[in-house]
């Protein structure tokens, strides 16, 4: 048992690190996949709505 546990120590450490990471992202409101935020601005509020939504007026459909 102890020998098997020693063989698995790397998996155990990585598993516990994964759990700790999961706990951290959950408590800090992080979404690892699918965050739609596109902003590049900072806490000072510089930068803002970047228009550049071009192309729609040329939308083509059959």
């Amino acid at each position, binding site marked *: 048992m102890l020998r098997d546990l020693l063989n698995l120590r790397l998996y155990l450490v990585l598993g516990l690190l994964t759990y700790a990471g999961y706990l951290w992202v959950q408590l800090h*409101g992080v979404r690892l996949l699918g965050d739609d935020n596109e902003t590049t601005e900072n806490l000072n509020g510089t930068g803002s709505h970047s228009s550049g939504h071009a192309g729609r007026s040329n939308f083509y*459909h059959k």
Partner: protein
Amino acid sequence: MNDGITSLEARVTCPGCLAQCTYYDPVGSSVFGCTECHTLFKRQRNGTTERLKKFQDVPRVAPALALGSIGTLPDGLLYRVTGYMLRKEASSPARWLEFMLFNPDTGYAQLAVYEGHWTFIKPSSEKHLGLPGLSGSHRVALDGDTEFAIYNKYQPRILYAVGEFDWNILDDEQLTVTEFVAPPRMLIEEKAKNWPVHWYRAEHIEPRQVAQAFGLTMSRLPYRSGVGAVQPPPGGSSWPLLKKLTGLLLALLLLTELVLSNQRYHHQILRQEFASEIGGPPTATSEATGKVQVSESFNVENGPAVLDFEIHCNVNNTWLELPVSLVNEQTGQGFEFTKSIEYYNGVEDGESWSEGRVDAEATIAQVPAGRYHLNLYPSTDYNHQIFFSVTVTENPWVPSNLFLAMLAVLLYPTVLYFLRGAHEQNRWNHSNFPNPHPL
């Protein structure tokens, strides 16, 4: 320590070439293979010798373990290599070497090597009867509670032998040998007409253990290929514990998810209807950004939070492009995303068709607590006006983090599971019997 094992030493004269053959078991050894002329002879009780066979199939390469060499095997005992045999199965070309190992206190053991896979073999005094009702291809042998599945059945042929033996090895050609496996262990049954059944216990031994035991370099040992009959699969004996640990980690993740999702207050913090400006004509510069619309203010109470945005609109054979800015009214911090919504339908060749959707969803993470409003910049097709609603939910259930963590936890066991499966398949590909535990 070596003195005890080397003190007993004697010589016998080969009747073929009169060479003096050294041997180490004067009490037990009765059959000898001459290293010089490859004659197998028997020493009678009265001291005379009788030729049994002259081997023609002399191996070109010296065996990995030299006669007389000493090593400590997995049972912790010191053994001397006193002989070896080159054997094959009567009905197949498979060849392997069996080294005779002798310890003056405990007797004989063997090391067998087939395609670089080593097994350490010792006699068993028990009768390893199988389970009733299981016979033929389903036959098993038992050692305690462990079931050994039938793996191979053959009649041996002796191609070559040198050293000393305490029985006439040519008699082994009358044997029917049956091997049962429960990696890393094996049970071997030797049966012949009018002879008692003999059982042996064998275990897998790594080549590096053999090299260490006899003080050899790995390059001296035969190259290992394929999967051995009792070679442990990847993960070895740790596999059951790995499954338990994985289960525990998954349970911990699910429990934490349950606790956190119950603790975090998820609720709707905004729902508001909007209407876009009527779309203008396409322009050469293609700048189609609409006029800004500002939502009511709302509070994010439990930051940093994940906010979920649901947009629903009445597009029909048109489109809506909606850049959205989430602005913190106290710090000015902003978050942005853009959603394009389009829905088209019609009838073509008598068949109705539709494509696109009338709703969209977005998620913004790590939003600090505070008071916010939305700036929306809707734009749409020429001469259309779109009505749309925006719903913002604080701390919705976001399973992606949980799924990613579970995936990370499952990655190694899953890879190992398939590697073990492939390993078992390779193992049983060399057997004439079916794998009792196919995937």
